[in-house]
């Protein structure tokens, strides 16, 4: 049973070693002559302003949270998809209810504006709260 996972472990080792060798090779073979300007992060040729570890749009967090919720729901659907013929007709209706609830949640978040990437509408929403 677990033995069938051994090749995956071997593959992981091989893949990791391969990637590491390729990267180390360029470290050894390539030149290394750093200077102040070369080490600057790219900002269209201007002097970089501040650091890049800044705050970013809340929309990314919202997408991430929604992803966690919906990915879990997708995972719930998988076991049913495997055995739905043997599980009886009751589970089919149960699944319909589950999916309807899922849809209500999806359309609620969409109407609330999770996917509004427009700054104006985000500000508008913040004012409403």
């Amino acid at each position, binding site marked *: 049973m677990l*033995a*069938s*996972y*051994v*090749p*995956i472990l*071997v*593959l*992981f080792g*091989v*893949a*990791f070693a*391969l*990637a*590491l060798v*390729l*990267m180390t090779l*360029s470290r050894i*073979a*390539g*030149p*290394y002559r*750093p200077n102040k300007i*070369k*080490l*600057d*992060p*790219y*900002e*269209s040729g201007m002097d*970089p302003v501040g*650091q*890049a*570890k800044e705050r*970013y749009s809340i929309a*990314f967090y919202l*997408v*991430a949270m929604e*992803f966690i919720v*919906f*990915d879990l729901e*997708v*995972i719930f*659907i*998988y076991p049913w*998809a*495997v*055995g*739905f*013929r043997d599980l009886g007709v009751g589970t*089919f209706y149960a*699944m*319909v209810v589950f999916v309807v609830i899922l*849809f209500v949640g*999806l359309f609620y978040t*969409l109407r609330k504006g*999770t*996917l509004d*990437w*427009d700054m104006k509408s985000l500000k508008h929403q913040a004012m409403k709260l």
Partner: protein
Amino acid sequence: MTEITSASYIVLGVSLFMLLNSAALTVYAERRIAAFIQYRVGPNRVGPLGLLQPIADVVKLILKEDVTPRNSYRTLHTIAPLIPVVTALMTVAVIPFGEGIFVTNINASVLYLLAIASLGVYGVTLAGWSSNSKYSLLGGLRAAAQMISYELPLGMAIASVILFVGSLSIVDVAAAQENWWFIFLNPIGAIIFIIAAFAESNRTPFDIVEAEQELVGGFHTEYSSMKFGMFFLAEYMHVVINSMLITTFFFGSYHLPFAGYWLPEMSPLLKGLLDVSVFVAKTGFFVFFFIWIRWTIPRFKFNQVMTLGWAKLLPMSIVNFMAIAAVLYFLF
């Protein structure tokens, strides 16, 4: 569950070798096809027809200076390029290339595939976050948001295939398509899967990650030398692997169309050769399809990408899934 023999390791070695080579070949093919579409010649100097161009590229990349920008998170900056390459290489373990020709047949290989595919997001996000460059940060965030969003329709499209098969093993998925490819039984699922696969591998029309006009190089703006080469390699390996997955899940894997009805009995050796060549031919076609799309269609805006994923593909894929379940349940 099949036993792991030395044959599995031979398949593993050969498939790894083939995958790396096909990534290099895809780079060459992309440049030649792009040139053909744009009425240019393309690379034709290194070797016959320019076929050795990828090797020249790799040697050049290795000989370049490896620059890590000031104030970046050095460890993460070094680890990040490893992740997409390793995850791309690890998917070959569960893909069947012919009847009985696979590395390993684990009973949850579909879940394994989805898990490994999601790990690829880390490479992109960490690269963007650790570079200390605004372009990298924005590119990394957008890439991460896009990749996780399209994982949902991708997962649901695969689930709609699982309904027909009744098993989470990809070997069973391939075997179930001997007569009817799933593109015929589940065309909507196939289209959703192909779109999501394009988005997952960050290819046009979903390459907003690398929209030069606004984000320069996206998450790999601050990468040079072979570290950049790793991202490049990973992108093309993902193209090849996604072509393999499209083939495996919807286009009959190693079967000829309706093979069960007309294909005569053959010796195992001949059958194996036929299987592998059919699989390679189909994969090759989809690699060409990826390249063809890239040089034909312009890219979407970011908000369009997100709306397509969440408001259109996700509901569509769930409705498709339930419809197929209902049809299978009440009509068959």
